[in-house]
């Protein structure tokens, strides 16, 4: 028995003893059965692509390394070299670009005229359109977000949106984000007041009555000061759903209790919550709270569009808790559209430059910045490293959703979803499962 380099199989078909000529090919020498046969060794005929002349984001640093891809996953070239004696079939010259994991947007309400909170006749088509368009922004996975809506909207829309992989048709859906209706009246922001709800029937009952079912839900934003919220948080966490605190007037204690029950995210930090106060920091205080369970990280979404958060506030949050910062667009229907009036959920909004207001007011109703704009703005405003800016849009959202073993990194074995960027962090091309899905 031997490791045959000719047949490339673990156990040679011949019966030669170690040291004797291998009978598969008399030029080879039987090397003896190698006891520590790597069990995940896969000899595959699938083509291997090697991306060269690039800098990849790996182990939190930009490194001058090649990126190897096979069958939609990042491949370990050292294992390929020694185990399979394999090499690349195709080489792609990246022209010294940066390769970062594909961006993950966990809060996006629509775009290009599509509003995820509207029960149109073609919800699937709407989601697909946005999914396709955001490839140009470097987004390879996203959470279609529904704002506070009446129950019948959820019952009509949710069954039409399912978790699925991305590809040439568009970015993948990793779960729906339900922002509301279990939120605070005082901090409703642009959400329609008449559809706000509370947990009056105990909690879980209210969830199912309102949403219908929770099958493809990834995140739920709620206000933890609402009575019975603790039971709800526990229920959602048990179902594998990320619980986020937002649109709330909770104080720090209430927020900490919610985190102890399993909440792990803060929806657009600073916006729609009590401002930081030095004797009661409120939800913002979670960034430096010492009551967060050990080994748990509280993540927080930041809309880094230059409008929703003053750069100084962005810097304070980033410096206080850099590992938790998750860039989100909170993009609305009008993203990608020209200035004017458009609908968001049950309301009408008005575009003015990069600002989007509830029509007739000065209340911000979401942003129209794209994810790559947010990455660039965050980098410029915070002065952080390129690596930090990229991780805030990829690694951190993946960690938040518990997906970092598959997405958000360029580690071996993870999905080959990535973007090529120039030094100014403009997206030049987007790849999903190793295939190019968009190019500038």
């Amino acid at each position: 028995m031997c490791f045959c380099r000719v047949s490339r199989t673990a156990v040679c078909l011949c019966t030669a003893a170690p040291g004797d000529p291998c009978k598969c090919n008399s030029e080879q020498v039987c090397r003896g059965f190698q006891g520590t046969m790597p069990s995940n060794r896969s000899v595959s005929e699938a083509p291997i692509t090697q991306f060269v002349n690039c800098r990849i984001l790996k182990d939190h640093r930009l490194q001058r390394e090649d990126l190897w891809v096979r069958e939609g996953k990042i491949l370990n070239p050292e294992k390929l070299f020694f185990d399979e004696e394999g090499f690349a079939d195709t080489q792609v010259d990246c022209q010294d670009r940066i390769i970062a994991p594909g961006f993950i947007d966990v809060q996006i309400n629509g775009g290009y005229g599509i509003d995820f909170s509207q029960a149109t006749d073609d919800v699937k088509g709407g989601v697909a359109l946005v999914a396709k368009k955001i490839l140009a922004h470097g987004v390879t996975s996203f959470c279609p977000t529904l704002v506070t809506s009446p129950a019948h909207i959820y019952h009509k829309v949710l069954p039409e949106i399912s978790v699925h992989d991305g590809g040439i048709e568009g970015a993948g859906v990793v779960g729906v984000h339900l922002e509301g209706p279990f939120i605070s009246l005082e901090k409703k922001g642009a959400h329609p007041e008449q559809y706000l709800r509370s947990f009056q029937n105990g909690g879980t009952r209210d969830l199912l009555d309102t949403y219908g079912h929770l099958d493809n839900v990834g995140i739920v934003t709620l206000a933890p000061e609402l009575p019975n919220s603790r039971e709800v948080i526990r229920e959602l966490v048990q179902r594998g759903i990320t619980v986020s605190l937002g649109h709330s007037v909770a104080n720090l204690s209430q927020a900490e209790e919610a985190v102890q029950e399993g909440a792990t995210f803060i929806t657009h930090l600073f916006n729609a919550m009590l401002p930081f106060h030095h004797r009661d920091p409120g939800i913002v205080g979670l960034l430096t709270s010492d009551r967060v369970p050990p080994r748990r990280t509280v993540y927080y979404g930041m809309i880094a569009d230059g409008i929703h958060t003053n750069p100084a506030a962005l810097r304070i949050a980033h410096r206080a808790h850099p590992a938790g910062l998750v860039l989100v667009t909170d993009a609305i229907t009008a993203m990608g559209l020209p200035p004017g009036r458009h609908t968001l959920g049950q309301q009408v909004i008005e575009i003015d430059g990069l600002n989007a207001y509830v029509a007739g007011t000065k209340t911000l109703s979401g942003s129209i910045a794209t994810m790559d704009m947010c990455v660039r703005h965050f980098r410029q405003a915070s002065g952080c490293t390129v690596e930090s800016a990229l991780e805030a849009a990829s690694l951190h959202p993946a960690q938040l959703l518990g997906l970092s073993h598959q997405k958000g990194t360029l580690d071996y074995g993870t999905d080959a979803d990535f973007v090529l960027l120039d030094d100014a962090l403009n997206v030049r091309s987007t790849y999903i499962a190793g295939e190019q899905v968009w190019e500038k």
Partner: protein
Amino acid sequence: MRLVILEDYDLASEWAAKYIRNCIIQFRPGPQKYFTLGLPTGSTPLGCYKKLIEYHKSGDISFKYVKTFNMDEYVGLPRDHPESYHSYMWNNFFKHIDIDPANAHILNGNAVNLQAECEAFEKSIAEAGGIELFVGGIGPDGHIAFNEPGSSLVSRTRVKTLAKDTIVANARFFGNDLSKVPTMALTVGVGTVMDAKEVLILITGAHKAFALYKAIEEGVNHMWTVSAFQQHPRTIFVCDEDATLELRVKTVKYFKGLMHVHNRLVDPVHSMKNYKN
């Protein structure tokens, strides 16, 4: 022997790389005629590997028809451990060049039958037609590969238990935890390297000076195994000034005086761009 003395580490590394480059290119390797190269690990050859990679990237040399045989590998260390010699060769050399993976031979320290692994390695070298050029380094105790003091000067590829000195010296790569340092290794023998048509030993740094003195100015002695190469017809020692600190002034002056002859070996430096393969 030839003793080539360069001013510093970088110049010594470059000279050695140019020499290796010329050897390979002038051999005119092809699909029917592979150039067999023996290779070392450690900090000494890093500069030389960097230069060879540079020559490859500029298109002056290809390793497509080169077969390599590494000197040694730890026993029992997982192949993907950052300190294994497989990792070293991948990161510092193989991943940057165009060698066919099937032609890169490194001893497998995790083979179930280590003895058989060593014998098979010797057979692979023989089947490849022997080694054209074996590049090596020298330990502070004068060892070549893991042929520790006391190793037979006619030894072949085998399992060796590492000397205490070597284990302590290696501890820095294993978090200074002696219990994590491998205690055994597979190594080519002194005899195996002596069989090569030509041997190039790279020696740099003051801490190697005494070993160099013992190797070339004293007698052939199994306590300083590199001294065996005094009996090899074609050996080159490439070193920097610091490595010569324990030699006699007379020796150093003589060989420095021969530099114009030695430099003809690397000047002109050949390129595969000029040859149609």
